[in-house]
């Protein structure tokens, strides 16, 4: 378990830094609110409707693409640890895996999944 101590320290630093930076201005900054200051900033225009809109489904496609290649990384990681010992078969196996996902990428590309139309 000792090897996880640096990770635990990192997590601690991350949490502390996040909490501190998010709240420090509350204590250090001056508080003089006016109505103008509290209104939504829209380049000087009056905001006409809520900013909560439905997002374009395109975002979802991008996220989906990300997930697929995220999972690919998970498979690459244990493979990278051992690929020297498994020389020909292991490398061919990973190449096949990568080629299949690249085919998926080409498909997405050709079908306009990455164009913001």
């Amino acid at each position: 378990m000792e090897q996880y101590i640096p990770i635990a320290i990192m997590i601690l630093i991350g949490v502390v830094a996040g909490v501190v930076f998010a709240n420090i201005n509350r204590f250090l900054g001056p508080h003089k609110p006016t109505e103008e200051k509290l209104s939504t900033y829209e380049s000087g225009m009056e905001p006409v409707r809520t900013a909560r809109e439905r997002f374009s489904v395109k975002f979802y496609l991008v996220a989906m693409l990300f997930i697929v290649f995220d999972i690919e990384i998970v498979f690459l990681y244990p493979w990278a640890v051992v690929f020297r010992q498994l020389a020909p078969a292991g490398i061919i196996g990973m190449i096949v895996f990568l080629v299949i996902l690249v085919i998926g990428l080409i498909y997405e590309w050709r079908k306009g999944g990455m164009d913001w139309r």
Partner: protein
Amino acid sequence: METFDIVFYIFATLTIVSAFVVVFTKNIMYAAFSLLFTFIGVAALYVLLHADFLAVTQILIYVGGILVLLLFGVMLTNNVVSVDIKTGTLNTIPALVAAAVIVGSLAAVFYMTWSTVGEPATAPTATTRAIGELLMTGYALPFEVASVVLLAALIGAALMARRTRKP
């Protein structure tokens, strides 16, 4: 093993409490974000079980990926004008009864078999290397088939989300 126990209880509490928030909060955004803590807690529990690869996977895929997808899902589906992004917990009583029966019987079984399972024969070691070897030898077929699952999911998502009806 004093510190081990303390760390375990901290993360077990984090997991369970945040899971409760996921189920019982009425704001779906709060539910999504508290799921983040559930995932992190589970990843920490994997670490305590010496499943280092699983812990990394949990962080990388669930915290880094699935949660992002989930948040997009929330933002895509909520109809902000007419309906609030809030939901209630439905069918609480039947769900409680069913969950109690399942959890109760499983807990009873675990309690009965606790003594027979025992300690692992060999001391736990880093799992990543063994997983890498198995992926490239005995489990080469499921490994390659996993890419077809991903491909099908990718094509399915692209198909469902495509706007035009042109072939």
